[in-house]
């Protein structure tokens, strides 16, 4: 039964407009950086952005660009272009789409602004190393690699020393490229804003602990953009404060993201960008709300290691111990914490052929959760940007069957 327009209107998150405004202004600023005499750095989503903010460099995120390409359904075309350039169709579709955009200024926003430097942190995957090498050769600009050793288990003293040393090297790199001194007071301020932004983002996500949850993972996928791109700015802090207030208001009024929230689910892996609307309607039609996800929470997961008064030192640990750079048993433990915290009844896992570090190991994580938490899980085979890997009928049937299982258990 269709929801009356009035109720639908009430359910819409007001902050969306503000977010669109900020992101548009941000991309305009980035694209006109050269005229404004500012430098642009391309940086990976798990990369250390705060020193860039402190140096007045505009950070640009090819992965966010990849997400936009996916959401605007330009993924297949660009992936095919990359394949024509010789890149295998088995490679990460963010990388393929971005690599294909660069030489022709393609994609939804006519290409990203030309970088003055590239900052790659391999804490999310080995793909970004290869991807940034490609772009460094293409643009002929300096590349800084922050090498964060994978932590199968503990965070050892030698890893801590190694990564901390590279942070100093990173600062020296920035001083050289920007030809100005690094402002150590400024980084203190940026660091505090970054941590505050992350805390607020966590608080926003935490409002989903309420029944009904005022926002779903699909909303989080959208509102995530700022904590990724403009972490460490006052604007981001202000925005999430506003969003948090709106969520608290929705909680007070009992407004849920899904009209009749019956099942509370957790989403694992990146979104399926070209199908978020379809998926969100599909789950909503079953009265299921995705109340939490492992993806958007990754940008505040490192909070446990941070000391905002000694930002540079703790930055090393925060970047090294993020969600994708740890063993699958530790990942499963974090998922199980979320299951309890958000009172989750079931898990939807996106087996994403683009992202090996996120997806390989998922079957084991799935088993661990089933054993320890006894909740049902479903695996969806797809890709975050390349829609050729999405089979609607198969996924439709899987989700229906999954909901049936949830129903029986009620």
């Amino acid at each position, binding site marked *: 039964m269709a929801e009356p327009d009035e109720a639908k209107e009430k359910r819409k998150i007001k902050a969306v407009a503000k977010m669109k405004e900020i992101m548009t202004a941000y991309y305009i600023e980035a694209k006109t950086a050269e005229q404004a005499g500012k430098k642009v750095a391309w940086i990976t989503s798990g990369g250390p952005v705060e020193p860039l903010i402190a140096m007045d460099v505009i950070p640009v995120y090819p992965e966010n660009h990849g997400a936009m390409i996916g959401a605007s359904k330009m993924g297949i075309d660009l992936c095919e272009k990359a394949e024509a350039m010789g890149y295998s169709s088995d490679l990460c579709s963010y990388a393929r789409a971005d690599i294909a955009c660069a030489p022709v200024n393609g994609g939804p926003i006519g290409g990203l602004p030309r970088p003055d430097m590239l900052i790659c942190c391999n804490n999310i995957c*080995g793909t970004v190393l290869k991807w940034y090498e490609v772009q460094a050769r293409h643009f002929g600009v300096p590349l800084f690699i922050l090498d964060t050793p994978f932590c199968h288990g503990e965070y050892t003293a030698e890893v801590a*020393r190694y990564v901390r040393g590279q942070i100093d090297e990173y600062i020296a790199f920035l001083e050289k490229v920007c030809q100005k001194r690094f402002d150590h007071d400024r980084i203190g301020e940026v660091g505090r804003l970054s941590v505050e932004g992350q805390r607020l983002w966590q608080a926003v996500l935490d409002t989903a602990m309420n029944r009904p949850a005022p926002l779903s993972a699909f909303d989080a996928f959208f509102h995530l953009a700022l904590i990724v791109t403009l972490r460490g700015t006052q604007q981001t802090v202000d925005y999430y404060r506003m969003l948090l207030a709106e969520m608290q208001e929705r909680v007070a009024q009992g407004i849920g993201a899904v009209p009749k929230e019956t099942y509370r689910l957790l989403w694992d892996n990146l979104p399926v960008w070209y199908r978020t609307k379809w998926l969100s309607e599909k789950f909503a039609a079953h009265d299921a709300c995705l109340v939490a996800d492992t993806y958007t929470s990754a940008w505040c997961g490192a909070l446990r290691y941070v000391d905002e008064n000694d930002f540079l030192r703790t930055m090393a640990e925060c970047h090294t111990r993020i969600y994708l750079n740890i063993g699958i048993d530790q990942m499963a433990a974090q998922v199980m914490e979320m299951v309890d915290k958000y009172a989750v009844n079931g898990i939807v896992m996106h087996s994403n052929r683009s992202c090996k570090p996120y997806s*390989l190991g998922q079957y084991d994580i799935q088993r661990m959760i089933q054993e320890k938490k006894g909740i049902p899980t479903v695996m969806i085979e797809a890709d975050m940007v390349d829609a050729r890997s999405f089979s609607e009928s198969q996924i439709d049937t899987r989700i229906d069957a999954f909901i049936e299982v949830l129903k029986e258990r009620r």
Partner: protein
Amino acid sequence: MKQIDECRAVLADPYGYAESLKAQTGGKIVGFFCSYAPEEIIVAAGGHPFRILGTGEKIRRAETHLQSYCCSLVRGALEDALAGRLAFLDGVLFPHTCDSIQRLSDIWRLNIDRGFHLDLVLPVRLDSPGARRYLLDVLNRFRAELGERLGTAITDDDLRAAIALYNRIRAALTQISRLSGDRPGLLKGSDLHQLTGASMIMDRGALAPLLEEVASELEKAQKGPGETERKRIILAGGICNHPSIYGFIERAGATVVGDDLCTGSRSFTGLIDENAEPVAAIAQRLLERVACPAKHRGLTDRADHLVRMAREQRAQGLIFFLLKFCDPHAFDVPYLKAALGEAGIPSMVIEAEDRLPADGQLGTRVEAFIEMI
């Protein structure tokens, strides 16, 4: 040559070989992945290093742990482990290479309870000031941890002896591959493949003299007649455990005069300084040897190396041999092809899984390429 036959027998049944070696000597077999594994430390600890490459058996058990978009090396190795075919291993070493190996290590640790499990998280960026210190730190940690697992304290003298042994092995392999490149027809590509393949499996103490004999026999042998007519090809890529690929190339009228394979020259190039502090010397070789695409050492390191090698070997073409779903190698292909093209060296790509693509098709592609160059 009887030595080559010996190697062929080892490679025909590497697991059987390891089992009987273990039965005869009571030695500890330490499995490893990747050519960055510091085998010298394993030998110094009295262990026997055994490179795991999988046997290409049908994937059944691994199917419930790894998706189909994972390379056949990782899936195949896990399959063998889950099926108990690797029960002879006393432990396994996982050097960090790529996203797939990193997750294989996790899955293995949680599902295979036999034997010890060690990770060695090497630096990815080899050309940074901190990388050497960090590499040294993790190698020293590995030395201590392995010694503990094998119930021995690894001394500097143990390390020196192992280094000397590996220098003999690597010097002999380098000489053999140089000779076979210089004098095509002297040694078949598939025979060189048997030698390098066996060098990752066989008892290293027996291997060194075997390879030295081969080298000196080849040194004495005469150049085969008419072989100079053959076109000269370089083979590059990751894991190659398909000796038949050499057959395709040879039948098409060409010969492999050099390789940049993870199971080929990348595993044996570069000697270790025998006079330096041993762990530092091992680290030095790892930092300097020809890099693998999962590591970073400059933006054109691999292209420069391939072009140099092709020129030195007077190669007319290069064939990339890649495993499907191997990201690090696949990312490099376009730029390497372009750099080779600029240097006037045509190249082609063969992508395979644990089995080669249907015979006819592959043969025709290789033939067409070799005809063209």
